């Protein structure tokens, strides 16, 4: 058999285009052994999903054998050499399924997938973090992204990551702050609480704590505390 024909056969087996037993007979190989490749190729995509979108998979009950996973495999074969990219199309895929009326997908699940994938993207953000010594005053973390969802996905994912998985919350606008921690470089996210958003505005506009407190008609101490907290989590970088 020519090389191209052989690879077409293997492709058909691992991509489920033809039964493994049929391909095994053509190639003269043990079907049980050939099935190992089919299982592994399929499992790698699931690994990509479960490592990047664990909360989404848990919420929607997606497993290696679930219909939704099968549909994703068929619709979005991996095109990139890097394995995590095999999960890149998943949020969009869920959104399409939702629009098409798939009852196993929820709007909240789509939003959660978008947040989980955005968090992974922050991890790869090329923006350099400034050296502490070069800072003259507080600055916003340059990797900060502020994202909005019509669902409290940030609160839900925080609870999920702490092992507390509750009911799907009711729709409510929520801002989520995503950035890389300055010390470790690890990606993180926080819900955009009024205090954190106030600090973002304050630092963005270059206001002192006192000036911001006056502008916000607040006492100085809580504003200073909010700034200190923002520095502690890496949302704001300060000398």
């Amino acid at each position: 058999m020519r090389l191209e024909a052989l690879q077409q056969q293997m492709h058909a087996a691992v991509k489920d285009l033809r039964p493994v037993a049929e391909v095994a007979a053509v190639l003269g190989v043990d079907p049980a052994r050939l099935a190992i490749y089919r299982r592994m190729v399929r499992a790698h995509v699931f690994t990509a999903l479960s490592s990047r979108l664990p909360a989404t998979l848990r919420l929607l009950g997606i497993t290696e054998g679930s219909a939704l996973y099968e549909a994703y495999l068929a619709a979005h074969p991996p095109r990139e050499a890097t394995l995590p990219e095999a999960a890149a199309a998943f949020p969009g895929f869920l959104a399409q399924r939702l629009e098409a009326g798939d009852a196993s997908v929820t709007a909240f699940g789509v939003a959660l997938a978008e947040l989980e994938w955005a968090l992974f993207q922050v991890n790869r953000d090329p923006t350099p973090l400034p050296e502490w010594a070069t800072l003259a005053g507080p600055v916003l973390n340059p990797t900060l992204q502020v994202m909005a969802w019509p669902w409290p996905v940030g609160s839900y994912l925080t609870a999920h990551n702490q092992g507390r998985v509750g009911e799907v919350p009711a729709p409510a606008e929520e801002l989520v702050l995503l950035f890389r921690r300055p010390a470790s470089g690890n990606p993180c996210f926080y819900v955009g609480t009024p205090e954190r958003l106030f600090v973002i505005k304050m630092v963005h506009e270059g206001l002192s704590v006192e000036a911001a407190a006056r502008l916000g008609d607040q006492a100085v101490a809580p504003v200073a505390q909010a700034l200190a907290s923002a520095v502690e989590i890496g949302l704001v970088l300060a000398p």
Partner: protein
Amino acid sequence: MVPFLGHGVGLRQTHWDTIFDAAEQIDFVEILTENFLGHQGRAHRILERAAATWPVVLHGTALSIGSVSPLDEGYLEGLAALIRATQARWFSDHLCFSSAFGVEYHDLLPMPFTREALDHLVPRIERVKRIAEVPFALENPSYYVQYAGSELSEAAFLTELLERADCGLLLDVNNVYVNSRNHGYDPKAFIEALPLHRVVQIHMAGHHDLGDVIIDTHGAPCVDPVLELYTWTLQRTGPVSTLLEWDNEVPSLSRLLEENDRVRTAASRA
């Protein structure tokens, strides 16, 4: 000739926070090309720090040297950039096809041992070698099926390929053991039939024995027969830079280094 770098481990994300504290216990690191290809952010910082700390070698899984589809020029560009950025001593990938017809399998599908496959592979290896000044090595992969249409033995195929393409060999001793068990051959006779002067690096790893088949998982300690085969191999090759692979169920760094010491001890017996 390539330098002897000692005993290294893979730079895995699980250990990014701790590995630099153990710098003196590690002789070199192997970077999985696809984990860092085009990556920015933290991965880029880790890469820079690793290159400043240890000698680096690159190891890929997605070159797909045996695919009937054209080589991915974008991948080669990224690979060349990574070689430059890390000042890698050499780079390697597997004798397999890991993508074809526009789809990535993220797995290593075996090549048939045929004359046509040899003719297909040689110019592709020559193309890959041209992307960098440092040596390129191909790894003998583990494989679970033997195509009925193969014309050569695996050892004869590998030998002719490496000689014709003037290419290095990354000898995975665990893979030799796994294949010998899965396909019923003598691992020592296999190794003796290889062009051992072309061995650039050795891989050691663990596997899972399912009874009727052994799966090369890189998710367990090295078994004693593999360590013994390694010692036996080094008696024929002389010292070879050796890397312990542990990619699934990755243990703590201290456990990984403990396992690497088992490999060192096996080398010291050679």
